[in-house]
């Protein structure tokens, strides 16, 4: 029964999980989809090219961090730090957008 339940499943968060730890809601309503899109695009446009490149490769290049590092001929640690810097910038530019239940 468990096997059938799991079949073809990829482990993901269940938002109805009683174990879910929830942050307090922010004071504003969730952003409208249109506003959110604008923010994401602005954040992307502001990313240095080397950071945006790593992000794009991860989504579309079918590459692991190690493969990206190989393709760019930089150490894997450099790729990881680009991802970290990109994420920090995303947090800053759109830190308050509330997408989390």
């Amino acid at each position, binding site marked *: 029964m468990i096997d059938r339940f799991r079949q073809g499943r990829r482990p993901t968060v269940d938002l109805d999980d009683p174990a879910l730890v929830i942050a307090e809601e922010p004071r504003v309503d969730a952003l409208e989809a249109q506003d959110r899109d604008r923010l994401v695009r602005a954040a992307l446009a502001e990313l240095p090219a080397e950071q945006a490149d790593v992000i794009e490769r991860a989504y579309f290049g079918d590459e692991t961090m190690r493969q990206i590092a190989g393709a760019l001929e930089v150490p894997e640690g450099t790729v990881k730090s680009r*991802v970290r810097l990109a994420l920090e910038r995303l947090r800053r530019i759109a830190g308050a957008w509330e997408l989390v239940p």
Partner: protein
Amino acid sequence: VIPVHHLPPELLLATSAGRTDEATALVAAVHLTLCPTCRADLARLDAVGGALLEAAPAEATKVPDALWAKLDAAVPEPTPPAPAPSGKVLLPRPLVRYLGVADVDRLPWKRILPGADELHLPLDRNGTPVRMTRTRGGFVLPRHTHEGTEMTLVLAGGFTDGGEHFARGDLSVCGPSVTHTIHFDPGDPCVALVVNEGHLVPKSAWAKALSWFVDF
């Protein structure tokens, strides 16, 4: 309580892009269940992935002033502590789906040492193995290193490793170059989800003796 030790950014990105193996996906799902901070980051990356997919023209990137004002006003409140679980360890659902049992005390633990139990998870696909460990309070795992990366996600209790403390929801990621000694908190047992890419390599006589008996 919100975790202090998070998913590394590259694992968040790999999770968002759907490029994690089953073991990593499970660790990520369990941490994300316990960590609203990483869920927020993942949501940001998911939005980026979505935007990249749409590949819209550059002029769509202008943000109106009114929207900036709205964002400036939206400073999130500090997070209140989660209600303390009443004695029982609440196992996140992504894990329960593999275990079939939600009660830690009813799992088919295998005793590997006095004070240390483990349980291998049946994964759907072959790959990096995943196990759960239950270690009694006060236990010390002597100095050792690993052949590959080790990820340890705490589900109950806690431990100290290299001056850093790890409690429920915290994720410890150690590369193969790390040699460490783990001191488990006194008191309740520590229950953790562990993924090792390689085997334990003992660095002390005691650890060498242990490794005769235990395939960490």
